[in-house]
């Protein structure tokens, strides 16, 4: 017969085992640290890097303007791309064949041609369509706009980036929506929700978990794609200012490329932090693992339940 010992104070001692050793991890780490130190030493002592020039231009006013313009281009075009991408994704999944075809053709064109060509094309819009008139076709005109008189390379660059990105965002969002099980839509419908509310309150919040990681990718990629707006031509983004404006004048391409790289890296790091928090927010309920708060509450309940000797 087995006797079950139920006294709480005489439980088995906690395990205190010798941890598994990992000698090869240490070896590999040492090798990597030595190689990195060699590279840093080489870079620091190599005069070709021109570190004095790098330091001089790192916080240069023109560079800071470039950073600001690049950030603006990234944020504006991403916002437009996400909104348009949601619209295109929903159209693509809609039962309406007109919406489906429009969305398909849009994706076909904007994913099928290089972004550089598209940006160059947007730059040529004022040449192709010199005047915009709004009115009755073949009749009187109410509104007239001369595109060539306006100086709008920033807007054209932003639109060019946004319309291209929207095609990619549409596919990411469509994948996210498709990843939500059908039962979720059914349960919402059975509760009397409309299709739009079901999308907004049930499907999209769950799709976000799938949508955010690739979208973070796209934002970071967009940050760097802005360096192509020189095709419009727009000349005041970070890369254009660092290379075409300053380096071309001072003949110092290496330190200025490093300045640009440094700022791209800093902005990317900030974006990654934002992505981490967004991902954590939208993963609510995705795992059975309890949150810290829930664990504390349970531990407290257990403490109260246990008899104290």
């Amino acid at each position, binding site marked *: 017969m087995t006797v079950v010992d139920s006294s709480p104070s005489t439980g088995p001692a906690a395990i205190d085992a010798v941890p598994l050793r990992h000698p090869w991890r240490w070896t590999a780490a040492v090798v990597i640290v030595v190689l990195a130190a060699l590279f840093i030493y080489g870079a620091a002592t190599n005069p070709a890097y021109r570190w004095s020039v790098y330091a001089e231009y790192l916080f240069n006013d023109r560079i800071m303007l470039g950073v600001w313009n690049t950030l603006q281009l990234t944020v504006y075009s991403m916002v437009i791309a996400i909104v348009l991408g949601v619209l295109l994704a929903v159209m693509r999944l809609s039962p309406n064949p007109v919406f489906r075809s429009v969305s398909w053709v849009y994706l076909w064109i904007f994913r099928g041609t290089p972004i550089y060509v598209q940006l160059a094309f947007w730059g040529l819009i004022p040449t192709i369509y010199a005047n915009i008139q709004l009115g009755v076709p073949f009749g009187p005109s109410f509104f007239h706009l001369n595109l060539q008189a306006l100086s709008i390379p920033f807007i054209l660059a932003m639109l060019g980036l946004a319309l291209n990105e929207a095609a990619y965002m549409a596919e990411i969002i469509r994948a996210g929506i498709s990843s939500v099980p059908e039962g979720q839509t059914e*349960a919402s419908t059975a*509760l*009397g929700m*409309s299709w739009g509310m079901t999308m907004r309150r049930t499907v999209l919040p769950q799709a976000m978990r799938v949508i955010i990681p690739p979208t973070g990718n796209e934002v970071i990629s967009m940050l760097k794609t802005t360096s192509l707006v020189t095709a419009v031509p727009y000349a005041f983004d970070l890369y254009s200012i660092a290379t075409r404006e300053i380096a071309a004048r001072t003949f110092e391409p290496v330190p200025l490329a490093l300045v640009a790289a440094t700022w791209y890296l800093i902005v990317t790091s900030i974006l990654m932090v934002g992505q981490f928090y967004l991902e954590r927010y939208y993963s609510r309920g995705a795992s059975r693992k309890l949150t810290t708060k829930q664990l504390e509450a349970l531990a407290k309940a257990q403490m109260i339940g246990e008899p104290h000797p």
Partner: protein
Amino acid sequence: MTPPMVKAEQVCKSFGALNVLKGITLEVGKGQVLVMVGPSGSGKSTFLRCINHLEQVNAGRLYVDGELIGYRDRGTKLLEMSPRDAAKQRRDIGMVFQHFNLFPHRTALDNIIEAPIHVKGVKKSEAVARGRDLLDQVGMAEKAGAYPAQLSGGQQQRVAIARALAMNPKLMLFDEPTSALDPELVGEVLGVMKKLAQEGMTMVVVTHEMGFAREVADQLVFMDGGVVVESGPPREVLSKPQHERTKAFLSKVL
């Protein structure tokens, strides 16, 4: 005379060339419990889904509380109902699914208050009070803040029942509510359903739980191949089945 809660007249449903329902005629009185049994693919679930218009009926008529489901009757012709009006009809019909279908990104309480607040426009404080009350009724008061993934199947299904009840439905549909549960969790869900029946809720239940049918149902319907083979008081159908098909089925499940 008040109309029955559910009235089906020759209801037919086909998916393409496949006829799933071949003329179902039945009635469920107010406050009554109808249990539907039958082999897989016999059309029980499809019929249930027709009642709240998750599936569109191809022929025949389906009424809930005297109201035609899914169409507007204009005397000589039927007009397809707009999604808006169909959604309005569904508000009064609660549904519980085999796989619970709780919203995984919302806590138990948030699952329950979601539709009352956003569909019916109930004030949040009222919805929360009612939500806690319902959680208490299904024995889940302590789990209000838990996410569905942290609950057992039986607990999830009880929350799902509370979610459906939060809309104050006049009719509850149960689509194999215990089929995805461990045997020891089945009892807790059936207990909640039994209590609900005793309180006078009209229910249509698709299930394989013959014990529940015998104890709670007012009427038992045996379906096979898209038709009602046999129906009547559960004790009679279960102990003295008239048709060979019913006998064969019951001999396997009892």
